[in-house]
C-alpha cells in the first residue's frame, strides 16, 4: 500500500485495466507520448505500445465516433476528452449516439466505453476548462455518470467503469488531481459505480455532496462539530444513478438535509436529489431541504472563481440555517 495522489490512483487503475484486458484502448488528444496534459496516462504508451495507447487528431466528435466504431468491432475503448468543456463538441457522440446505442440495438450489442474527462473549479484555468457540466449528462438515459472524490475511490471506480458494459462518463476533478493523497492498494480492487458512501457519520444533519465539495462539506462538518452539531456527510460518487437508499437511511436518522454541488443551481444533480427526498422522505424531514450551489451565471472568469464556487463557509452557514429551523 502506498500513498498516492488522485491522479496517480487513476493512472494506476488505467494500468490495471490495460494489463487485464487486451481489448482495452486508451486514446485522445495528447494521451500518448505526452501522457495527457495532466500526465494521467503517463508511461502507459511506453508500457502497452502505440497500438493500445494512442493520440488522435484534434476533434472531439471524431474521438467519440472512434469509440463507438471500435466498440462495434469488439474493443473496449477508454477515450479521453481533454477538458469537460470540450464535451460540447462531442455532444452528439455521447448523448445522441453512444448513450442510446444499447437501447437502439434492443439490448443485443454492448458499448463498453469509458469517457474520462477532467473538470472542476478553483485552479484558474482558461474558459471551458473547469465547468461542472454533469447536469447535461445525468439527464441522459443509458449513460452512467460517476465522479470520485478521493484517490482510493478514483482507482477503484475507474477500474469498475472500464469493466462495466454500459457507457460511463468518468469525471476527474482537476483540483483534486494533486491536492490530496490517500493510501491506495497497488493491487486490483473495485469500487461500485452506483453507490454513495457515508464519509463522516453524524446524527444531527445530513450533508449530501460530490467531488471537491465533499472535502468542503467535511470542513464544514468539523466547524459545526465545535458547536456540537453532528453532521453526517455523504459522497454521492455516482451522479447517475443516484443511490437514494444511502441518502434516505441517513435522513431517517438526522431528519435534516443539505444538498451541495459546485455546479449552478438550475436543474441538475442537487435538484434531482432534493426532488427524490421530497418525493419519498418529506414526512421524515423536520426542516426544508437546504441547497448549496453555484449561482446561475455562466461559469466565472478565473479571477473571480473563489467568489463563485460554493465553499465550506457556505455549506456551514446553510447547515446552521437548516439545523436551527
Amino acid at each position, binding site marked *: 500500500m502506498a500513498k498516492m495522489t488522485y491522479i496517480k490512483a487513476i493512472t494506476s487503475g488505467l494500468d490495471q485495466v490495460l494489463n487485464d484486458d487486451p481489448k482495452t484502448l486508451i486514446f485522445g488528444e495528447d494521451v500518448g507520448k505526452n501522457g495527457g496534459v495532466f500526465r494521467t496516462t503517463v508511461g502507459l504508451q511506453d508500457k502497452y505500445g502505440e497500438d493500445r495507447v494512442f493520440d*488522435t487528431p484534434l476533434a472531439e466528435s*471524431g474521438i467519440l465516433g472512434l469509440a463507438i466504431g471500435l466498440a462495434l468491432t469488439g474493443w473496449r475503448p477508454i477515450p479521453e476528452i481533454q477538458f469537460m468543456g470540450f464535451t460540447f463538441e462531442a455532444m452528439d457522440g455521447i448523448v445522441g449516439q453512444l448513450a442510446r446505442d444499447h437501447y437502439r440495438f434492443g439490448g443485443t450489442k454492448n458499448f463498453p466505453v469509458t469517457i474520462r474527462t477532467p473538470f472542476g473549479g478553483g485552479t484558474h484555468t482558461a474558459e471551458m476548462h473547469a465547468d461542472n457540466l454533469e447536469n447535461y449528462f445525468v439527464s441522459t438515459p443509458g449513460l452512467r455518470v460517476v465522479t470520485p472524490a478521493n484517490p482510493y475511490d478514483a482507482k477503484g471506480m475507474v477500474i469498475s467503469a472500464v469493466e462495466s458494459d454500459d457507457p460511463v462518463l468518468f469525471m476527474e476533478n482537476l483540483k483534486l488531481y494533486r491536492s490530496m493523497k490517500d493510501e491506495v492498494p497497488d493491487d486490483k480492487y473495485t469500487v461500485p459505480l452506483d453507490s454513495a458512501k457515508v464519509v463522516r457519520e453524524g446524527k444531527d444533519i445530513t450533508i449530501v455532496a460530490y467531488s471537491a465539495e465533499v472535502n468542503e462539506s467535511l470542513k464544514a462538518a468539523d466547524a459545526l462539530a465545535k458547536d456540537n452539531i453532528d453532521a453526517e456527510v455523504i459522497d454521492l460518487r455516482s451522479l447517475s444513478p443516484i443511490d437514494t437508499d444511502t441518502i434516505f437511511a441517513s435522513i431517517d436518522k438526522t431528519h435534516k438535509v443539505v444538498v451541495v454541488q459546485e455546479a449552478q443551481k438550475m436543474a441538475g444533480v442537487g435538484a434531482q436529489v432534493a426532488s427524490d427526498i421530497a418525493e419519498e422522505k418529506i414526512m421524515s424531514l423536520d426542516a426544508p431541504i437546504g441547497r448549496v450551489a453555484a449561482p446561475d451565471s455562466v461559469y466565472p472568469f478565473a479571477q473571480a472563481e473563489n467568489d463563485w464556487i460554493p465553499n465550506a463557509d457556505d455549506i456551514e452557514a446553510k447547515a446552521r440555517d437548516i439545523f436551527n429551523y
Partner: protein
Amino acid sequence: MANGSKQIVDFAKIKATMADPYKHPVQVIDREGKVVNPDILAKYSDDQLVDFMKKMVWERTLHEQTMNFSRQGRLGFYAPTAGEEASEMGSVTAFKEQDFLAPAYRDLPQMIQHGTTVAKGFLWSKGHVEGNIHENKNMLFPQIIIGAQYVETAGVALGIKKNKDKDRVAFVYTGDGGTSQGDWYEGVNFTSAFQAPAVFFVQNNGWAISVPRYKQTAAETLAQKAVAMGVPSVQVDGMDIVAVHEVSKLAREYAAAGNGPVVIETLTYRFGAHSSAGDDPSRYRTKEEEKPWFDADPLIRMRKVLTDKKLWSQDQEDKLVEQYKDDFKNAMKEAEAAPAQKVSDFLKWTYNVPTPSVKKQIAEFEAKESK
C-alpha cells in the same frame, strides 16, 4: 515591383484550377445508352449486367411500393430512392459480406442487399426496434444525425485494422448536404490519419431537402474535399451502374490492401421528395431542372444496353416487377405481424444493468403490460 511582373502567388489561378483533377466523372454508359468505355464494359459478363438491371428494377419497384404503402399509412418516415438506383446498387454490390455498412436513412436498399430483410427495413420505417437489429450482419441501423455515421465509420475501420481482419473494409453513405457537416471531415480525416480501410460515398443527388448543392459549398466538386485529408477521390456518373460498380470495386480493393480510405462522389438525382412525410419538391425546384435528370434515369440507359444485347425484354421486366411487388407485400405483412413493443423492454435495454430507478419503472410497466 514592376507592373505586370509575376506575383509570388496567384490565388485566382489556384481557385480556377483546383477542381481540375476531380471534375471528370467516370462513365461507362452515357445517358443515351451508348457505351463510351467498351473496355470496362467487356469485363462484365452478361449475367452480371442482367443482375445489375434486376437490382435496379428491384429498387425502383421498392420505391414505388413504399410510396403506395406510405399513402396507405402503413409506413413511417421513409426516404424515397428513385433515381439513385445505379448509385446505390452499383456501390453496394462491390462489397463483401464481411464488410461493415454504416447507412443513412436513404440507404435501406443497400442494407437489404447487404443481408438484412425487406421486412426489417419496413419495421425500421414503422418505428419498431426489430428494424434496428441485424444480428450477424455487418451493419448499423440507418443514421438520422447526418455525419454521425462518418465518424463511427472511422472507428469501425480502425477496429478492423486493429483486429487485423483480412480483406475487410467499412463503407458508408451520405448525401451532398452531408459533406457540410464537421463530422464528415472528422470521419474522413480520422480514417486517413489512421490509414484505416474505409470507402466513403457521397451520393450527390443535388438537393439537401430544399437546399441545392451549389449553396452547400463554393467547391466545384465534392470529391475534391478529400484532398485536404490526404485521401484519393473521384467523381462518377451516378446514373451509370457499371461505372459506379467499377469505381467502388477499385476503391474497396485499394482500401482493403491497407492504403487508407477513398472518397467517391456519385452524381445522381433524387427523382422524388426528400421524404414521404410531406416534402414537396415543386416548392423549390423547376420542371426544367428535373427534365434532363429524369431523362438520365439509370434504368433507361441500362435497359437500352441490355435490349441491344438481346438480354432484356419489357415482358421480362414486367414479370419481375410483379414478383417484387408480391415480395414487398409479403414483407409488409411480416412487418405488420411483429409483436407489439413494450416500454418495459425499452427500460431493460437502456442499461446493461438497470439502475434502481429504472428497475422500479420496469416493474411498474410490467404490471401495466400484464393487465
